[in-house]
């Protein structure tokens, strides 16, 4: 017997060795441990079908233990009879289940496709990077395992991970890489990608020498690892990318899918065994929360690190709900079973609504407080116990008024007596988020923990945002549209109560957006001035609320098409600490060229110095000189070509474009050099003169600098500048007049109006 303490790295099944647990021992050893781990799935249905399944399973050449049992699922308060199938080797369970489901499709299956890491977490309370004490016996077999910490700790200990970064010298979609950069904290290597034999030999030597826990690659999923594996096969030199010897790699195919009004592209994935592979360019939201965020997602969801790095946060929430169900002995259906109950048209009109989105009062405002409900929808679910099994169209029998909450506009009843599955899952996550917010508010801005907390908060935010969508998602196992509708109904009620509270206290409500409101009152400009309002809103809604900040000034912008019409999410403003909040304008758009986004940012930063609306005018000369400088740089060809790049997403396949957009034309250029882009992938291009008006950045030839369409970029720049200056009463026409009067030597009035026409033969050079 031996005792080890360390960090849990990974749990997976091995075709011969059963369950494998990797432990990063405190003595520095990476231990591969084995554990007997039988898993059970269940089947329910007509007794004759169950008997047939029993006979079928008995004939299988596998070690299974069959028994009759009774369990309950989420929607049935009473237990019902089931056939329990206990499979001794967890590696064969998926195969056995697939055979059974194919032979007996009429049966209902439960706990059939649960990821092994979740089954393990449900029993031992583990999660990736958990601190564990393990007792092992002969053959490194685990006798007992105790988890020493909780995923809800605010300051989880930092594991001493060995990370090796692998990166080709250029973006493989742009040009053909020639070298591979490899680095860890102390060493760096540069290997030529050709010839292949020395590359493979050297790479193997480096992998053996450093034995990393994490391979952090750039384009590893989509290019590097497939390329290396192909070379390895061609030259018959096995690559030691896995720590687990004798196993291949888990591949997931590339795909494009449509969600929330946009098309998403996910590249293919390559997962390794015994160590992790994460591709920074194929990791969901990697830019948003980095490795620390990924580790936090893994900790709170109990999903493997390699999985959470790539899946949507929705899968994280789904895993957390499964874990809650497993721990409570509630059956997890293989397929969702609930369907929507019929509604009348009028019921549907009331129920099928989202959050309240107001049209703000257009223009510049000062001393405006922005007040936000903290994680409004998850808070609503926890506060009002909204879960698929707690929402009913009729009052549950035997429940008294105090244990049922009625939603009048939907005629739905929400049980309050015992906590639902979703609120139970979310409550600790919400608590952790609130505690982190409180901790961050106390820490000074230079504090080193701040960046970790920010990454955690960002990871939590995505989990909490998606948990609401999953309540209404048609394929979510624990989804139910009535519960989803109940959440938005409570959300609308809370926002309207907040509005009423603000108006009762004499505030003007400038804008409301789902979970936030913007208010002002003459003479009030300090945070304590708004505290009574916060207290009142918290009291009348029962939901946590916080002052996001007080704006020195904020501008709500009208629609581009009609300046009389306000737009809900197009505004910018400067908080009292000088920080900016910007929504819906060019700087936030992916397709804005970098130099335009930077110019807009600098203009806003300049205006943010104004302490109140009256001071804004003082900063206008600075803004104009900035604009003139950028314009003259643009004309003189001094802006580097990469800063002119426009990046747009393809929304469909090329033949599906009836009149090809600039992005489609650029993609067509790439197609002609056999670089095929899928819907959801981005294409980068530069606007050029003549036909087809674009030059794809990743095409074989670099663009000719003199072909840059300076006029088009000038128009885009002026439009972006005018977005910022419009609230100060400077229209786009006035801006053009003011800018070009001073830039171009104008022979007559006509060329002053159309300055671009007067400067033919512009020369664009790279710098």
């Amino acid at each position: 017997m031996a005792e080890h303490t360390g960090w849990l790295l990974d749990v997976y099944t091995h075709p011969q060795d059963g369950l494998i647990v990797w432990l990063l021992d405190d003595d520095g050893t990476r231990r591969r441990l084995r554990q007997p781990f039988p898993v059970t799935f269940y089947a329910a249905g007509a007794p004759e079908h169950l008997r047939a399944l029993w006979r079928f399973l008995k004939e299988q050449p596998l070690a299974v233990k069959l028994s009759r049992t009774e369990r309950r699922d989420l929607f049935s308060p009473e237990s019902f009879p089931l056939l329990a199938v206990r499979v001794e080797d967890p590696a064969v369970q998926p195969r056995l289940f697939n055979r059974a489901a194919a032979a007996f499709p009429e049966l209902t299956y439960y706990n059939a496709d649960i990821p092994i890491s979740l089954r393990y977490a449900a029993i031992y309370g583990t999660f990736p990077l958990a601190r564990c004490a393990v007792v092992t016996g002969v053959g490194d077999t685990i006798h007992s395992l105790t988890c020493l910490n909780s995923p809800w700790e605010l300051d989880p200990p930092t594991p001493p991970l060995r990370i090796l970064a692998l990166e080709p010298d250029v973006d493989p979609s742009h040009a053909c890489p020639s070298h591979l950069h490899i680095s860890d904290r102390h060493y760096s290597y540069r290997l030529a990608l050709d010839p292949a034999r020395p590359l493979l030999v050297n790479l193997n030597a480096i992998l053996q020498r450093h034995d990393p826990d994490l391979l952090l690659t750039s384009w590893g999923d989509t290019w590097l690892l497939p390329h290396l594996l192909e070379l390895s096969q061609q030259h018959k030199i096995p690559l030691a990318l896995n720590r687990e010897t004798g196993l291949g790699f888990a591949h997931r195919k590339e795909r494009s899918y449509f969600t929330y009004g946009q098309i998403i592209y996910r590249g293919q994935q390559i997962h390794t065994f015994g160590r992790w592979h994460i591709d920074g360019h194929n990791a969901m939201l990697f830019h948003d929360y980095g490795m620390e965020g990924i580790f936090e997602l893994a900790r709170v969801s109990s999903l493997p690190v390699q999985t959470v790095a790539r899946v949507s946060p929705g899968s994280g929430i789904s895993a957390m709900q499964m874990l809650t169900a497993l721990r409570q002995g509630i059956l997890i259906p293989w397929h969702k079973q609930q369907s929507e109950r019929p509604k009348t048209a009028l019921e549907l009109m009331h129920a099928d609504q989202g959050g309240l989105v107001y049209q703000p009062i257009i223009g510049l405002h000062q001393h405006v407080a922005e007040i936000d409900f903290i994680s409004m929808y998850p808070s609503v679910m926890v506060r009002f116990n909204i879960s698929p099994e707690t929402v009913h169209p009729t009052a549950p029998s035997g429940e008294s008024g105090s244990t049922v909450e009625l939603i009048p506009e939907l005629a739905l009843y929400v049980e309050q007596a015992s906590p639902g599955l979703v609120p139970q899952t979310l409550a600790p996550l919400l608590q952790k988020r609130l505690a982190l917010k409180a901790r961050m508010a106390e820490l000074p801005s230079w504090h080193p923990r701040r960046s970790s907390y920010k990454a955690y908060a960002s990871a939590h935010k995505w989990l909490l945002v998606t948990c609401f969508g999953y309540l209404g998602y048609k394929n979510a196992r624990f989804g139910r549209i009535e519960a989803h509708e109940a959440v938005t109904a409570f959300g609308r009620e809370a926002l309207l109560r907040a509005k009423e509270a603000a108006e009762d206290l004499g505030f003007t409500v400038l804008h409301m957006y789902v979970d936030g409101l913007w208010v002002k009152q003459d003479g009030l400009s300090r945070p304590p001035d708004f505290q009574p309002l916060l207290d009142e809103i918290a009291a009348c809604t029962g939901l946590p609320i916080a002052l996001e900040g007080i704006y020195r000034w904020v501008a709500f912008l009208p629609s581009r098409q009609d300046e009389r019409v306000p737009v809900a999410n197009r505004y910018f403003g400067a908080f009292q600490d000088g920080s900016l909040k910007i929504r819906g304008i060019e700087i936030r758009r992916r397709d804005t060229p970098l130099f335009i986004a930077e110019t807009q940012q600098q203009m806003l930063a300049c205006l943010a110095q104004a302490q109140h609306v009256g001071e804004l005018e003082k900063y206008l000369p600075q803004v104009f000189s900035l604009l003139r400088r950028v314009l003259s740089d643009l004309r003189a060809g001094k802006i580097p070509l990469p800063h002119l790049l426009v990046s747009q997403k393809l929304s469909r396949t090329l033949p599906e474009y009836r009149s090809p957009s600039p992005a489609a034309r650029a993609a067509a250029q790439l197609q002609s050099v056999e670089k095929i882009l899928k819907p959801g992938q981005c294409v980068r291009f530069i606007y050029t003169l003549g036909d087809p008006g674009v030059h794809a950045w990743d095409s074989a030839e670099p663009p000719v600098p003199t072909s840059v369409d300076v006029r088009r970029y000038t128009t885009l720049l002026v439009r972006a500048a005018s977005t910022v200056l419009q609230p100060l009463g400077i229209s786009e026409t006035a801006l053009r007049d003011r800018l070009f009067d001073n830039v171009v030597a104008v022979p007559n009035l006509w060329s002053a109006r159309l300055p671009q026409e007067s400067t033919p033969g512009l020369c664009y050079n790279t710098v």
Partner: protein
Amino acid sequence: MGRTLPSITQVFLQEQESFARFRRALRRSDQLALDDLFAAAHQHLAAAAYAAHALPFEVFLLAMLLEEHKEVLRLRRLVEDPQPTADG
């Protein structure tokens, strides 16, 4: 986005579109006044959504009337209590 019903903005645009022939036949000056009315109704889309009225155009008409009445109140105040303003 997986919606069963059109959003209030879509409903509003459909209603506006259904008056395209009416608008086209108006004099230019009247067209602009009509556009003002629709812009006024547009300001109250959130309230119209919340109302979930079976006949949304009735709510849009009421929203137009609401903005008209606000304008009447503003002008009445000016007439009854004329304050010197910045632009005279």
